[in-house]
């Protein structure tokens, strides 16, 4: 199945190159990095960030932004955590509840920003504060320990050694990429991102789709919260501080344009991998905190510069013609 229908400067070679380069580098520098074990642990850490990055990709595609993912994730995890730990709900009630919470936050973000035409930056900035407050409220600022109740998400599959969460996350990535390039909804997102007015003029109501995108993003954030809960077996109301920046970083490294209309879910996933590999590698090397920060910063910029320059020609062109 050919996933890219339109030749655009976001085919994945450049990113894969960067990723491999990093893996090689760390394999050379640390004798313990290049092992199945390392990759498994690495992969089991990313499900939450992955699904959230998927949602973020959609949001950026319609030229929006979502700063609230971090605290919304914390809130959703908190809700599930409290329901499990204190009200003794079963997993199959608590998880939907958490995802509904995410959905609600997303719906609010979408409704206010799309319907009232308020910049999503502001709306989600507000939600960032509100959801954090909510997380404190529901948990009464106490970390909620749920233990094995959510174990199944963290549980690793025999043979593969990767968690169920990861499998789900990967399925989400594929599904999302499919939706993006092969469904009407996906194409509308791209259209809205580049020329919302024209969409309106073709008798399609962009507002409805924009709200749907934010709802979807909220839902995925909720799912991320559940994964987080499964991974940590406890819900910390302070979780996900600054997650919005990591998520956006991953997506933008993946070549999705912040001005909308251009992006790919697969590449966002590669972006997530790049960030995860870097974190793990630096940790295994025991690099000092300052150097960690500096290296991280440099890699983020370098990755994008590299990607852009590999595509320079078509990039500039696009720039010229689309402006």
């Amino acid at each position: 199945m050919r996933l890219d229908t339109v030749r655009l400067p976001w085919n994945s070679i450049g990113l894969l190159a960067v990723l491999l380069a990093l893996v090689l580098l760390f394999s050379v520098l640390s004798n313990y990095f290049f092992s199945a074990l390392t990759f498994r642990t690495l992969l089991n850490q990313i499900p939450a960030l992955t699904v959230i990055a998927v949602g973020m990709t959609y949001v950026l595609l319609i030229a929006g932004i979502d700063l609230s993912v971090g605290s919304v994730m914390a809130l959703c995890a908190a809700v599930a955590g409290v329901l499990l730990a204190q009200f003794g709900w079963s997993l199959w009630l608590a998880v939907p509840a958490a995802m509904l919470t995410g959905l609600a936050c997303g719906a609010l973000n979408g409704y206010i920003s799309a319907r009232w035409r308020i910049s999503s930056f502001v709306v989600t900035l507000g939600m960032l504060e509100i959801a954090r407050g909510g997380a404190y409220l529901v948990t009464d600022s106490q970390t909620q320990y749920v233990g094995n109740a959510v174990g199944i998400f963290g549980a690793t599959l025999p043979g593969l050694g990767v968690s169920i969460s990861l499998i789900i996350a990967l399925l989400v990535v594929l599904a999302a990429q499919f939706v993006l390039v092969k469904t009407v909804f996906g194409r509308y997102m791209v259209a809205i991102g580049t020329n919302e007015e024209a969409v309106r003029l073709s008798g399609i109501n962009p507002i409805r789709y924009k709200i749907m995108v934010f709802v979807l993003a909220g839902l995925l954030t909720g799912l991320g919260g559940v994964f987080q809960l499964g991974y940590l077996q406890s819900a910390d109301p302070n979780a996900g501080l600054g997650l919005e920046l990591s998520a956006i970083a991953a997506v933008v490294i993946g070549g999705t344009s912040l001005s909308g209309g251009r992006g790919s879910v697969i590449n966002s996933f590669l972006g997530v991998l790049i960030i995860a590999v870097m974190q793990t590698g630096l940790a295994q090397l025991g690099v000092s905190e300052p150097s960690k920060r500096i290296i991280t910063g440099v890699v983020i910029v370098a990755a994008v510069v590299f990607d852009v320059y590999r595509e320079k020609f078509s990039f500039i062109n696009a720039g010229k013609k689309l402006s």
Partner: protein
Amino acid sequence: LLATLVACDRQEGEITITPYEAPEKPRVALITKSLANEFFISMAAGAEAHQSANADRYELVVNGIKNESDVAQQVNLVEQMMSASMDIIVVAPADSKSLLPVVKRAVDQGITVVNIDNKFDSELLSQMKLNIPFVGPDNREGAKVVGEYLAQYLQRGDQVAIVGGVPGAFNAQQRQAGFEDAMQAAGMNVVSKQSADWEQTKAAVVASALLSEHPNLKALLCANDSMALGAVAAVRQAGRTGAVQVVGFDNISAANRLIQDGELLATADQHGDQLAVFGIEYALQIFDTGAIPADRKTPVDLITSGQL
């Protein structure tokens, strides 16, 4: 992607031998909280000093998390240290509950784990049938000591306020509780308890507000020194230096200077450097003998202009 995984499995044969053949020296991983925090810096420094002094006995890798509350990242660190097949993990958990599951996994994998600085939730430990020795101070006790010292400078019924750390953070709650114990015991009137997220600037804002809201406030108890610095600035701005006492916690160098200048009344020192060293010594002991020693409380010293 799964392909890569399978590939890894195939390679597993040749590649992952290295970690599994036991290295001659035990490899120790020290996992602290934010290595951007002076307290844990000195902890790491102490550990490294100790290692270079005993280079023949063990190898050391130190890792910290980005910000105090990033439990997830700390769990990642533990896992990464497991996959880097460490023999010993000495951890100062960012949360007393959230880290236990992964720590249990580490223990099951045969890694020796020692808990420092911030004690794991004891009932959870027993629930998990884990026996992990703890080396560290009692934050609540330390805060209580500071509070009691402050009380000597106040009259019964004086108005005082508490500036707390990130809500939900274990040591934040412990220290706040300690302060409250002392203040109640001395019959002070705690007019407000607010969080300033461990941050200097936020503390300054909160403190200033408290000062204008409570004209005869007599003292500000801050859950760490960064916030104490902010509070001192606020007191200075309000021109109430001397009239309002400020106490902190951690004894970072800047706070030390303030105590000398008399703008800060007291703080508490938990000897971060020794903390890690005790932890490592403990761990090596267990690693060699297999005997698990009892918990060990490290001292929390009151720091006042007196001692300096």
